């Protein structure tokens, strides 16, 4: 009797454990950053207007991205430290959403002096990605560094840092309205699976309420 009961009880416990770990409701992603209250309305942190140039010399602005959600990072081509690591993770996310037309990828160089349009074009080509899907952007240095701040990334020109720049490797998910909805550490591969789930959650959000 006792021997028969043990597997039964074990499976009940196991079932409870599995069921309780399931998430029946997918929670909407948060909107990161400080909020403002204007005339009684809560305004979430929003990426300000911007205009940069991509690897095909086309202007890319907040408006031109307003029909898309996008995954972005900050890097520079001569970066000998974290950038290749972050790019590898960006590629992993790109591979996942390559055929999802709602998603774009945006990489900002923080070294616009060296990373001009031809250099960015060559980099994108060597990375083997679709130039209409993944933009490599350059522009005014101050504008790039300011917007890094809005994406909760740090970009500093620092002579003592390797190749002259210090920066963080966060990968950011921005929605159509310019709200930051998810982020992960591009230097930590373990944070990527959750980020990929977050991208899917945001896609679902737009597909349910187009």
């Amino acid at each position, binding site marked *: 009797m006792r021997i028969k009961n043990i597997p039964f009880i074990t499976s009940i416990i196991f079932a409870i454990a599995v069921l309780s770990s399931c998430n029946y409701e997918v929670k909407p992603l948060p909107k990161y950053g400080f909020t403002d209250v204007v005339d009684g309305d809560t305004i979430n942190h929003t990426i300000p207007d911007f205009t940069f140039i991509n690897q095909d010399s086309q202007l890319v602005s907040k408006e031109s991205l307003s029909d898309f959600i996008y995954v972005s990072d900050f890097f520079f081509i001569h970066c*000998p*430290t*974290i950038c*290749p*690591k972050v*790019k*590898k993770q960006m*590629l992993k996310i790109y591979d996942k959403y390559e055929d999802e037309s709602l998603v774009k990828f945006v990489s900002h160089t923080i070294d616009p002096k060296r990373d001009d349009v031809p250099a960015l074009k060559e*980099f994108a*080509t*060597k*990375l*083997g990605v679709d130039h209409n899907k993944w933009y490599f952007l350059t522009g005014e240095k101050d504008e790039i560094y300011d917007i890094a701040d809005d994406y909760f990334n740090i970009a500093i020109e620092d002579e003592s840092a390797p190749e002259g720049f210090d920066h963080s490797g966060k990968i950011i998910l921005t929605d159509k309205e310019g709200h930051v909805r998810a982020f992960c550490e591009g230097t930590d591969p373990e944070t990527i699976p959750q980020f990929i789930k977050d991208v899917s959650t945001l896609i679902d959000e737009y597909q349910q309420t187009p």
Partner: protein
Amino acid sequence: MSINKLLSSCLLVFVITNYACEQKYNQGKVMYDFHCAGCHLEDGTGLGEIYPPLTKSDYVLDHISDFPCIISKGMSGKLIVNGKTYNGEMPGNKGLTAVEITNIINYMNQTFDYGLPVMQLLETKEHLKRCEE
């Protein structure tokens, strides 16, 4: 009692050999992570056609004797690795000793499964003579 003794001595041997294996090329790993992994990545897979892979790389297997000089002095120009063309510039790693370079190469050989014989310090020194100024 004798079974217990046997078991515990087996365990001891297991722990020691495990420890010894994990410690192998420990310096090589530290040096690899610091000097090489930034571009070639910790898992040695490289990046697109920007940084060539060090794993499963025909170039490494065919040119292992050039690696002491490549690690020490860097390299540039066209390079074909596993059928892909690379044309970048790798900076040298000034200040690495022959011992450290040997450990990096042996760590790569072990971790990326080249199946090559262990490189001896004297071999590294011999190879390095070719690129000494």
